[in-house]
């Protein structure tokens, strides 16, 4: 998942602040999930990396679609 390294690579362009790891909520096909992800707490901007979106997240979507 998007970890601390990734958090350091990006900053929030809205406020100029750094990203920190926080709990981010997701929902799909009637399911709700919480994942630790880098985000700007103040502006609410989250970071989903390409790796996460096309990897674990895509897999999870597939599984939920077969439910």
């Amino acid at each position, binding site marked *: 998942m998007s970890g601390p390294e990734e958090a350091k690579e990006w900053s*929030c362009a809205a406020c100029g602040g750094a990203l920190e790891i926080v709990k*981010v909520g997701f929902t799909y096909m009637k399911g709700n999930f919480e994942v630790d992800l880098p985000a700007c707490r103040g502006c609410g901007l989250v970071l989903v990396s390409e790796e996460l979106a096309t990897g674990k997240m895509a897999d999870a979507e597939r599984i939920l679609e077969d439910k």
Partner: protein
Amino acid sequence: MEQDKLREWENKCIQEEPPECTAACPIHVDARLFAKEMGRGDFEAAYKVLARNMPFPGILGRICDHPCELRCKRGEVEAPIAIGLLERRCVESAAGKLRMQLLPRREQKIAVVGAGFAGLTTAWDLLKKGFQVTVFDRSERLGRSLWDIPESLLPREVIREELSVLETLKAEIRLGESLDGAGFEEICREFDAIFVDREVAGPDFALGVDGNGEIAVDAATGATGREGVYAGGGTGRCGAWSPVTEALHGRKGALSIERFIQKAQMGAGRENEGPFATRLFTNIAGIDPLPRVVPGDAGAGYTDDEAREEASRCIQCECMECVKVCLFLERYEGYPKKYARQVFNNERVIFGAAHTKNQFVNSCSGCGLCETVCPNDFHMGDLCHEARRTMNEQRLMPASFHEFALKDMAHSGGERFALCRHEPGKNESAWLYFPSCQLCATSPAEVLSSYRYLKERLSGGVGVMLGCCGAPAYWAGRDDLFRETIGSLRLEWERLGRPRVITACATCRSLFMEHLPEMESVSIWKVLEETGLPRSTCGSSGATVAVADPCITRHDRETRESVRRIAGMLGITIDELSLSGEKPECCGFGGLMYNANPKLAADVISHRVQASQTAVPAKPFSPPGGWYRTRRQEGTDTAYYRTEVKEHDYLAYCAMCRDNLAAAGKRASHLIELIFPAVEGGDPAGRGWISWSERRANRGRVRDVILRELGEKGAGNVAEHENITLSMTDDVRRRVDERRILEDDIKKVIHHAERNGKRLKNVQTGQYRAFHQQENVTFWVDYTPEANGFTVHNAYCHRMKIVGVMG
């Protein structure tokens, strides 16, 4: 799917029917599995297979008269599997001791009169069912004709040893009995039911006889004229003695006695007792002949090695015809009968439980190749289509499976493309050109030239209708949307005075023919054959191509032939693919496979394009029967699905086939590009892939040109974000397109981020990253603002919705 519908489907697929050998065997020994274990050298396992059906396997295994061999499929190639000799070797070497410790647990007492092989079999079966059995014989030992068999084949101690099982099972043995008429009557009084072995029967038994003077029995049940008395055996008295037929008679008797005691239906479900005709189909085309192994020492039978070699000749008969030619069917590790049940169950799971077959049901292209190759015309596409409709009805269809395709369809039916007009300057139409959304998307210039040409050559006015035939909705099982789509096409067609429709896409035509039968249609190829071709055609004369028929023309010979004649008129030579004509595969577009299962669609097409690099077997689709299952069980490569590929350019006449072949790296052109070349002397087969964004832009172009010719203005609603200019490398364009992200989606993300400043910044590169959720999909874009637009470095998406930072 209803239960009876499931039965109907299941009954159509005969993959699970028994092989010829088993069906021909009077006691249905699983000779296929037996041969497989023998071939592997696992004689113990092979022995267990025999023992499942054989009474006294140590005896019958040595002496069976093997009628199975007469029907063995290998026999149609050269010589049947030597099942008899293999059984002998098996029971000789496995020397398996039957460990049977059952004790009588039913109080009924059964008499077996006569200890021939039939009687012994009855005793064996009834003891195993828990009855109390008493065996009578006049002789001083059990076995009768068994003792006439040469010792070299059936050693005496084997007879004694095997028959001793009866005592182990607590049978009472009464030898040396007189068994005259009076003795028989006494037995009849004393026992609940009786089996008479005709090898031993006395003339004074009060039982009716047949023409040969044998006790008359009902062939199906072995019943004599007397209640509770059954008879069989004695095959040697009016023909050759057949041990396995003796066993069958004994078995029949035992089953009848059990039913008699239980007062159960005597005749029910006994049609397949004894040899029967199987429905299993096994394709033996392409199976190389292998000579039957002859034992080095004929008298001694096979050695272990000889037996292994002979057993390996077994084809492992099975059908799997459809699975051999369909990557989709292959990928899910089953066959239609199994799939039918899984789909049925999938519809039945309680809400919230796993529907594990959702993606499966939506991955079939509906190409119909399975139906063509199936001995029973099983059309998996129909089954999947029905299941999709049900999923939609039950509101259980995940949007992701069809959303991209349905949005593309909505684009074609919307203000950026849809149009229906008379020919400019006319107010009637004898003809109506329907070039299709996908051909306009990939070959706009050619569509426009062809329209111009049709207007020139046909009289009575040639109107034009731009739109989608509704195929994506149909494939998605969205009947509502499909009906709405063809309903509005029909209205427009009526408004134009019911002209004759000219289609350039075989899918449109086939849907029209089926769902709008009142609308007369003809393919553009047929029309061009009649009008003749325009003078300036592409410089492809003299070339050789392989025609890639679209799957939808499987039953449309007229179109396939028309296309070939036009290619001939163009001076093109055709080198036919083995899977052309009635057997084309799908390009991955059909049934929306590309949307529901992009990975599979990519594999399907790359298969058709790249198999040349992985060696094409001489006979592409003739793996021996059983090959598949055996490989699967062994966990080795099952990729026998190898399609034939030609080095020549492919000539397609379906827009999606052309585009998918090209995207997979094959040089491919569309017939319309050869007849109406956009560039004189160009190389249409070298055009390469095209993105979904370009496809939409091209549709718009066709519409604009037609409107301009009509002197009308296009609908000019351009959204703000559309004015953004993007620049991307080819790599990025391709990757983004494969993720089904449109440039329009990207523009929306950037537009949104730039307006409200919500974006991340890479601390090293200075690139921005922003996301925006558009309906069900969240798109992410990495970009850099430039003087006159934006450079896009990457884009990706997901369907999980971001709720936001929690607590």
